[in-house]
């Protein structure tokens, strides 16, 4: 009876190990490919970068008023099996008004900030990519605030901001 229980336990261990191996092999980080005309296995370790951003693409900025920050928050996810660098830039999209007293475009005031543990300084976005976060291989959740300070004499009725994120090997 005891032996039977041990045997069943072993079977369960083997089944779970198989499942784990199956999941790991499906994750794509390590692929072992067989070469048809050879008895050797040729191991391939493809470099992989994955960037996960909010599904809908568009986020609403709330609490916009002249002289105050409008803010929205998202969670960015980076998965990589190599060192990576995430960069961000702000683009001009839709109807936008110039800040009347300084002549600076609103897009230049778009800022992003990492808000997780050891929150970082804000990065001011421009038309060129700015370094945002970097890290070694692994999976990283990057909670991020977007902020934009508006200053207007005549309130714009419609503004749209486009923010681009680019991930690359570091």
């Amino acid at each position, binding site marked *: 009876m005891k032996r039977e229980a041990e045997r069943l336990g072993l079977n369960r261990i083997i089944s*779970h190990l198989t499942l784990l191996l199956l999941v790991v092999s499906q994750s794509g980080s390590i692929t072992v490919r067989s070469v048809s005309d050879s008895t050797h296995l040729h191991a391939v370790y493809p470099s992989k970068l994955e960037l996960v951003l909010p*599904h809908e693409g568009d*986020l609403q900025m709330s609490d916009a008023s002249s002289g105050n920050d409008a803010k*929205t928050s998202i969670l960015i996810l980076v998965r990589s099996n190599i060192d990576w660098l995430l960069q961000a830039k702000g683009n001009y999209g839709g109807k936008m008004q110039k800040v009347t007293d300084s002549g600076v475009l609103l897009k230049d005031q778009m800022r992003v900030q990492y808000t997780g543990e050891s929150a970082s300084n804000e990065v001011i976005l421009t038309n060129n990519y700015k370094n945002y976060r970097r890290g070694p291989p692994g999976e990283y959740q990057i909670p991020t605030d977007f902020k934009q300070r508006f200053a207007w004499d005549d309130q714009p009725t419609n503004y749209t901001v*486009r923010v681009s994120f680019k991930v690359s090997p570091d």
Partner: protein
Amino acid sequence: MIKMKSVLLLLEFFSFLAIFVQASHALAVEGVIFDAEVIPGEKIAHEMTVTLGEGESPMDLAVEIDDWGQSEDGVNLPVEGRASPGPYSARGFLTVEPLRFHIEPGGAEKVMVKGDVPEDVGSGGRYALINICSLPGKVKEDAENSVGISVAVSALARLIIAGTDQVRRGEIAEANLSDVSRRHQNLSLIFENTGNCHFKAGAEAILMNRDRNILGRSSSLLSSNILPGAKRLYLLSLTPEKELEPGCYFINATINCENGTLLASKELEFDL
């Protein structure tokens, strides 16, 4: 028996976790580094796979090959405004297909990078950036006060010309001391790769007195790959074990290649 139960519980927990961990998936590119040793006259190809996660919005993407530049902090950047490829660029003989494509949720698209390596390609390394970026969607009429988000993945092509000399050399273009005190000295070095191929390098600084006794040292981590013609900034901080007495001191700064070869050195002198 208790041990076996613990093992089983642990495995069940990890199996459960693993199934949920892999559920989240969005824009991913596999094969983002095209490393190859190529022969002049050879036809080359590299495949990348772009996938979009289930439940994502459909996406239009564009692919572009650029000259690959680097900033002093090692960020890979496209070189803008250059009509003809640079001396170490692979852009002139690489093509990519497709240049634009549409991808549906859960879909995958193969992106092929192909090239005819010129017979007179020269020696060393040839490099290019392959940018895959989402195209902006149409602004929705009801999308007032909104933030649109687009994504891009930058892939690297690093081609080494087989049978040619790989010259790993460089020079310290700038060396500056700042915040010099009896307790602390900061050193910044700008190293330039004057060779013909990429390599990683690290910096080291040794603080000595007039009698050449070592009073402190500092070293950097190995950098990421430095492209030929690119500059890299190293910041080193020296803190001697004992507070320095008034006098004349030297800092010997060196840059070493990843294989241990000395690439460049410079001596700086300061008085306290």
